[in-house]
């Protein structure tokens, strides 16, 4: 241990230690404000003069590792940082406000300048005319008022001291190619969801894209939770229009026009609407699946002709059944069967929150469905099995709802029958028969690759069995 009492030496030592260990640059900032006295001594050629002329013999005042660099107050910076700073300053300059302070009159200002400031003007009578505003108003007499104008007051853009919420909004009424980018909406936080919908419609209606779209009243639309990429999550009901926006935390939403008001609005609590669906009516598919449908139709014109022959088979129909599983309890589900897909949705139960698990809603394109058969018939109930190709359903689980455009684009890579998975259901006899018949009809119409493969695999199996049996 050594003792030093030369304050300049100590100061230098502390500085060196700090600079060599401090990565934050903070010490530089602090030292920038150092006093003149210290600076003088630091730049002095005669290093560390003893303030009191002591007889300290030490020559080596430097800290041991670092040679004292007089230029240490500026650290080398990356060129990007310098560039960024320049840009920042330029921007500030552009945006800078000119400040003009009130000052009493400068005595040096030439009197003439000031005297010609106040020149008396002749007041001329004005001519009669129609102003542009009146002309505009006259032209706009028959132009209907924007029906959503009352929602303008919920606009949060430019508000000061008012809490606002910002959203990325996907307008699903737009054709697919115009839906790549969301609309940015800012809304005051005390608005309700229905006010937000009105505001979106107001903003949207004044854009170019809205020209081809027939907008309806606010109650005809719902806001759905949506992925960042614009994929609307239809597994959840739309946000309750009566609730304040501040209740929900989502920042990306999709505006969806209700096709079936009864279904979408009351989905979670009231399942009356199923009866509507069950009355064998076609369901208007969402825009997206419609697009897929179109694509598929083109690829499969034959199938369309077949559709016409066997009209009712590919039409959407919803059934109720219980899903069976070895490990989970029975779950009531609705099975929606159409020519495009089979959807299995859990039926929300009053006590569903208490269940230890939740059945996920799943959707299988019809191309992945391999087989459907009744496995067991009891007195009043029947069990039936739905076999599907696990390979393609994997895609479905990743959130890809789109049907396979053609079977050939996904050559079935079934090395063994293990690639097939199945669901077991139980329902009353009539429903089971109906479902199985309907799915079989559809499978026959479509003659999917999955089905062929499955049939082949099954045949092989039975052959093997037979051979074993013969042996």
């Amino acid at each position, binding site marked *: 241990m050594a003792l030093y009492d030369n304050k300049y030496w100590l100061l230098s030592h502390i500085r060196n230690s700090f600079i060599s260990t401090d990565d934050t640059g903070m010490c530089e900032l602090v030292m920038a404000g150092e006093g003149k006295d210290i600076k003088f001594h630091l730049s002095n050629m005669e290093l560390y003069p003893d303030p009191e002329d002591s007889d300290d013999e030490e020559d080596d005042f430097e800290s041991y590792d670092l040679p004292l660099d007089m230029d240490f107050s500026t650290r080398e910076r990356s060129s990007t940082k310098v560039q960024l700073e320049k840009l920042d300053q330029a921007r500030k300059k552009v945006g800078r406000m*000119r*400040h003009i302070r*009130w000052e009493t009159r400068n005595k040096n200002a030439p009197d003439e300048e000031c005297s010609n400031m106040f020149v*008396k003007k002749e*007041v001329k009578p004005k001519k009669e005319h*129609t102003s542009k*505003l009146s002309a*505009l*108003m006259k032209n706009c007499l028959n132009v209907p008022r924007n029906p959503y104008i009352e929602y303008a007051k919920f606009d949060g853009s430019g*508000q000061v001291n008012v809490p606002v919420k910002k959203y990325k909004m996907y307008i699903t009424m737009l054709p697919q190619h115009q839906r790549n980018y969301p609309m940015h909406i800012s809304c005051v936080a005390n608005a309700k969801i229905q006010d937000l919908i009105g505001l979106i419609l107001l903003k949207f209606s004044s854009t170019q894209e809205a020209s081809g779209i027939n907008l309806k009243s606010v109650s005809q639309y719902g806001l759905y939770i949506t992925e960042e990429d614009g994929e609307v999550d239809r597994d959840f009901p739309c946000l309750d229009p009566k609730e304040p926006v501040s209740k929900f935390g989502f920042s990306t939403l999709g505006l969806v026009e209700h096709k079936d008001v009864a279904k979408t609005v009351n989905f979670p609590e009231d399942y009356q609407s199923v009866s509507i669906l069950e009355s064998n009516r076609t369901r208007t598919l969402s825009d997206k699946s419609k697009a897929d449908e179109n694509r598929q139709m083109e690829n499969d014109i034959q199938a369309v002709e077949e559709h016409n022959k066997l009209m009712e088979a590919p039409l959407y129909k919803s059934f109720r059944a219980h899903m069976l599983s070895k490990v989970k309890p029975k779950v009531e589900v609705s099975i929606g069967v159409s020519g495009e897909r089979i959807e299995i949705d859990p039926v929300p139960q009053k006590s569903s929150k208490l269940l230890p698990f939740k059945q996920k809603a799943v959707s299988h394109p019809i191309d992945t469905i391999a087989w459907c058969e009744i496995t067991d018939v009891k007195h009043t109930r029947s069990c039936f099995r739905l076999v599907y190709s696990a390979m393609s359903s994997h895609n479905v689980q990743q959130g890809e709802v789109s049907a396979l455009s053609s079977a050939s684009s996904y050559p079935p890579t079934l090395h063994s029958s293990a690639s097939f998975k199945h669901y077991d259901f139980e329902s009353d006899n009539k429903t089971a028969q109906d479902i199985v018949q309907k799915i079989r009809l559809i499978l026959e119409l479509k003659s999917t690759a999955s089905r062929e493969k499955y049939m082949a695999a099954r045949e092989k199996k039975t052959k093997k069995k037979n051979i074993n049996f013969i042996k």
Partner: protein
Amino acid sequence: MTIENLDNDQIILATGGYDHTIKLWQTHSGICNRTVQHADSQVNDLEITPDRHLLAAASYQHIYMYDLTSNNPNAIVNYEGTSKNVTSVGFQQDGKWMYSGGEDCRARIWDLRSRNNQCPKIFEVQSAINCTCLHPNQVELFVGDQNGIIYRWDLRTDNNEQLIPENDAMILDIDISPDSNLMASVNNKGRCYIWSLETGLGDIATKLTPRHKFEAHKRHALKCKFSPDSRLLVTTSADQTARIWCSETFILLQELKQENQRWVWDAAFSGDGQYVFTASSDGYAKLWNVKTGAMERDYASHQKAVVALAFKDVP
């Protein structure tokens, strides 16, 4: 609003108030096409420069100028140095200078010709200034204060003349008809006073003769404005109405009223006097047809009271 827009559509309607924003509107559709944040203070008064390039907002201790020709959301000029609220602001017709009045009891002339306010002028009165109005001859500024005094300030000579229409009443607004034949003033008792003006030749001051006095409103009358043809006078009030009067007979022609519109703070006529805008505490600016008295448009998006509007029509 961009420069192109200005060329095509030079109608400018700006509104401001207690929600610390200034909004610019498309007048015929009712759509707000620009919002600027005016974060420091409420807006007390708004005025558009004669060249239509700038919007002045009178606020607490400052007058801010916003650029109407760009989308710059920040003020580009800040006139400071007043100690209290600036309550009114206006411009000389060629944009040479700006006048303002404030609660610091001073009316000021700001020289706009050079960048640094070379020839300022100041006029001090006994109490807070509520309103200022420039005579169309551009050399006499009328100032109304809380003591109920109207000052005629001659800008060339700095002489002044005082009028006290009523004791114990605040002067809340003054206006001079564009043909410079009449001056109107309203006070906090709802009364409106009218003077006949006689323009003096050369350096001789305008002569004022009391002409008429009437009960315009039951409560505070807040603003009075003549139509561009000088035939109509609109008054606004805390009694939740704006009223349009014939400026010859002072007969009530229209009452502009709507349920719950609360205080009506400001008003402006269209260039031909066929329409009138109002600003009210319900957060709306409204456009009324003068002939029918019907409201034809409303401008919604302010979160709080709208107390000031500035309008520039195209003749």
